[in-house]
């Protein structure tokens, strides 16, 4: 294996001396202008769009799929290359059982039918980072098929109600990753790093049942949550351990699917969303101008935020699939892998968590999504365990709006929060029992968040934040506001309702967080209207 590294290094040196043209440099820019997406929203109304995803997830195993070399990101180039990985003649693949176990667990978590016997195929194509001239994959008889993924679509940025969605999974197959080509301008050639060559991948082929970038992002995000829960993939899109290809087409309502294009190797959720939405609008524009969509592979340029044609349309690949003769059919039973043993190992998955939250705590889908998708659910459940009778809505608003707001500013996650769930529960309890006002609870939260070690009740007492639950005193304050602002009061009484806001602001200031602001504004309103009579 050490010797192989030497071979690879000398090969790289050789490469530097040669002028080299690689397909990737041949990207032909067809659309150079970024489309006006806002204007395009209007056009999209007359069209339906269809999106199908293919996800390549690197299997989190210590070694590669068919060789013993290590599977590690960012190691020195060609330092993790066994004889098999660089296709030295005479070497043979030996299946990594751990990779099969991970893929099996994933397949079951994604509700797939597991094939007790599956087979490996060779998929042939010439590429400098594909050393054997073929990739070992499972085209004809994959490890698993016919699954589905339930997820929820909700984007807080877009003012739409959340909804549930399902994407069907055609198949889950095991296959080898390729190496990486580096196209260095400085050395007038291409360099090949085979560290990634032969790393195990799970390829998940989804049916075309999504409609836009947002759904695609929701689907992939949910998949990431599942794979992370299963610990079968580390899902670092920026490192390429999870990559997405999207197939996109548009059609008029009632018509069959249009010709699709494929956008390859999307390595962030943002690129996924943007490339799909760009591609939908581009296709609509082409069709509305009387043009035709070509079945082609396109790449996404994150700088220009556009997709680009990657290959000439004439170049249709025939992969000349052939059964892999050096591997026996993958028999789970022969490997002593019983799917039922794996089924019980599946942890509680996000969809179940959301359902549980909605059923047990009567939360809305949106709130359930926020709790589960941001991994805030454990904190929430710990709070509810600490003091079971807390008002759920209050817990959620203080948690999701106030506490997460603070964490977000510091770019921290809830797991890094200094306030433990028991303290947090105590704060909510103080509000619930009318011991402190809502605004005082925010102050309290901030203090504790910044590391105040005192007990919440002690803070309230020492800071003088105890809420005054006396309507008489409140009336006194309100009357004072009214007498101090004769002009505003007159304007309000003359029908200028908007002026109330400025009066309420003064009131809030006067109350100094010691009164329930709901009660206070109601009192002010009542007094204003009373005098009006």
């Amino acid at each position, binding site marked *: 294996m050490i*010797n*192989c590294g030497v*071979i*690879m290094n000398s*090969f790289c040196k*050789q*490469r530097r001396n*040669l*002028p*080299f*043209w*690689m*397909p990737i440099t041949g990207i032909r820019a067809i659309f150079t202008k970024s489309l006006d997406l806002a204007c395009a929203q209007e056009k999209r109304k007359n069209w339906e769009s269809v999106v199908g995803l293919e996800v390549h997830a690197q299997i989190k195993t210590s070694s590669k799929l068919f060789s013993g070399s290590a599977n590690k990101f960012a190691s020195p180039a060609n330092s993790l290359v066994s*004889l098999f990985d*660089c*296709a*030295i*003649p*005479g*070497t*043979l*693949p*030996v*299946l990594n059982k751990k990779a099969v176990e991970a893929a099996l667990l994933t397949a079951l978590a994604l509700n797939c039918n597991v094939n007790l016997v599956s087979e490996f195929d*060779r998929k*042939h194509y*010439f*590429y*400098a980072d594909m*050393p*054997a*001239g*073929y990739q070992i994959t499972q085209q004809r008889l994959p490890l698993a098929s016919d699954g589905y993924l339930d997820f929820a679509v909700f984007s807080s940025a877009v003012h739409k109600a959340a909804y549930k969605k399902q994407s069907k999974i055609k198949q889950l197959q095991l296959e080898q990753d390729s190496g990486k080509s580096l196209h260095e301008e400085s050395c007038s050639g*291409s360099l*090949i790093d085979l560290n990634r060559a032969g790393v195990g991948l799970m390829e998940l082929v989804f049916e075309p049942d999504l409609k836009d970038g947002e759904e695609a992002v929701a689907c992939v995000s949910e998949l990431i949550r599942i794979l992370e829960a299963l610990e079968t993939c580390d899902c670092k899109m920026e490192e390429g351990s999870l990559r997405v290809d999207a197939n996109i087409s548009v059609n008029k309502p009632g018509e069959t699917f249009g010709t699709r294009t494929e956008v390859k190797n999307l390595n962030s959720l943002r690129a996924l969303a943007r490339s799909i939405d760009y591609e939908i609008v581009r296709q609509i524009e082409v069709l509305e101008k009387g043009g035709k969509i070509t079945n082609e592979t396109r790449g996404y340029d994150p700088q220009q935020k556009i997709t680009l044609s990657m290959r000439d349309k004439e170049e249709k690949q*025939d992969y*000349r*699939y*052939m059964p892999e*003769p*050096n*591997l*026996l059919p993958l028999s789970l039973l022969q490997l002593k892998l019983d799917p039922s043993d794996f089924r019980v190992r599946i942890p509680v998955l996000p969809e179940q968590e959301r359902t549980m939250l909605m059923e047990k705590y009567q939360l809305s889908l949106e709130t359930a999504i926020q709790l589960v998708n941001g991994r805030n659910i454990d904190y929430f459940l710990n709070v509810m365990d600490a003091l079971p009778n807390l008002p759920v809505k209050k817990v959620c608003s203080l948690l999701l709006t106030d506490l997460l707001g603070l964490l977000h500013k510091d770019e921290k996650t809830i797991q890094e929060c200094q306030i433990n769930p028991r303290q947090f529960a105590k704060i909510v309890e103080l509000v619930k029992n009318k011991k402190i006002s809502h605004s005082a609870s925010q102050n309290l939260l901030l203090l504790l968040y910044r590391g105040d070690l005192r007990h919440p009740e002690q803070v309230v007492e020492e800071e003088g934040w105890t809420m005054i639950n006396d309507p008489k005193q409140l009336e006194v304050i309100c009357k004072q506001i009214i007498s101090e602002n004769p002009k505003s009061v007159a304007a309000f009484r003359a029908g200028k309702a908007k002026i109330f806001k400025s009066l309420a602001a003064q009131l809030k200031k006067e109350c100094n967080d010691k009164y329930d602001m709901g009660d206070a504004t109601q009192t002010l309103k009542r007094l204003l209207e009373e005098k009006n009579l």
Partner: protein
Amino acid sequence: MLHQLKNGSCTVQELYAQCANRVQVIKSLNAYIRVTDEVSQVQLQESTTRYLKGTTRLMEGIPIAIKDNFCTKNITTTCASKMLENFVPTYNATVVERLLDSGAILMGKTNLDEFGMGSGTTESIFGPTKNIWGSNLISKANDIDNKVSGSQSDDFFIAGGSSGGSAVAVAAGSCSVALGSDTGGSVRNPASYCGVVGFKPSYGSISRYGLIPLVNSMDVPGILARTIGDCRSVFEVIKGCDPKDSTTLQRTLNKSKTKRSSSKFDKLCVGIPKEFYCPGLSSEVIDAWKDVADLLENSGFRVIQVSLPHTSYSIACYSVLNPCEVASNMARYDGLRYGYRATGKDLNSTESLYAANRSHALNQIVRGRILAGNYFLLKENYDKYFVQALKLRRLIYDDYVKMWSTGVDILLTPVTLSDAPLFSEFTEKDSRAQSADQDYCTQPANMAGIPALSLPVRLSKRNLPLSLQLMAPHFDDETLLDVAHLLEKELNFPHPTVKVA
């Protein structure tokens, strides 16, 4: 040989010196691509020490030769191709490793048809290997007149192939045993022409790790030896499960079935498959076949005629399956990581570099098969050719299963249609026609994965070896060797004596 070494009637140095001498004497036959004397000297030293100390291993001091498509650590492994002319593996094939670990001495790497594609050892970048029979290297003391007659003086009898180098190396006594590889008959065919034992064990009984593949689903490392005893010793050392080759048999062979005492032969049934009585079969081979069948019957075997109806389709089936796997296996020879690399100003794209490397460094037969295989594997052709060929292979396999189930234990057939042809005769035909003739009797065993062995029987009128083939059920290699051993004793084939330098 091993017996003589162990009982002291011959020393390691004597044996080695004799073999090394013959390596030199037969240089003109071109059996060896590379003679590895630096390596063998070191091994000889160790063997000598071990004989002194009494710490000998199973194959201690036995000189061997290895076909040049088995990877040998730090020793070039060329496949007789320009593509791998300077390829130095960093590892040993499992079979090589097992032989060296058990004390064998490596005399050299032997010639073959490029990547094993051929049946004459005539398609090597190092030139053809010549048969020792009919050459002027055999001493007259053998009382054999075997000069090439009636043809040009530079003509010669072919060695057969593709393991021709190994067969000649053994026949000449330049090594005790040699490794070959057998995909369609590449061990048995040259063994037949060179008058040595050529054994293709059951598929799955021997690791292919480090054997540069031709057709993965049929390739089996094979053994060429002068005697069944030597052949069996090597088989014992190299056989068995290898974690590096997933297609090797995990369990050990059923001992009760494989252990047989000679007294039990009379209960065995020998099948004579009528389909092997084929057009082009020489009368001399037919006579030998009949005589050996009679010999077996007289020795107590039950001899019956059997039928393997799909035999004649084997070559057609092979002519599809072979190119498909070849096309796939050869895809790695792009010249980037190892192997021949073209230079030139016009090589300004990956594609043009690939094209130049592959067209310069692979011969026409190899390129022809790559083209054919890629054609058969095209989406629109896959079902028409590849799938049909697989179905045919299953029918051939089933023929054997059915036949064995009727109680047949061993098959006796021809191995080649005649004695060795002259180079001039052989090269009149193209590669496909050669394969159709040469592989007819040997190919079905590869389709079925069963063990098969070529055993020299007698000399032809031209004083060239005539051989016959034995086949046995899958993983019943021991029965095959037992029967071959019995025949060997009865037939007493005359091995040639090579002139001393």
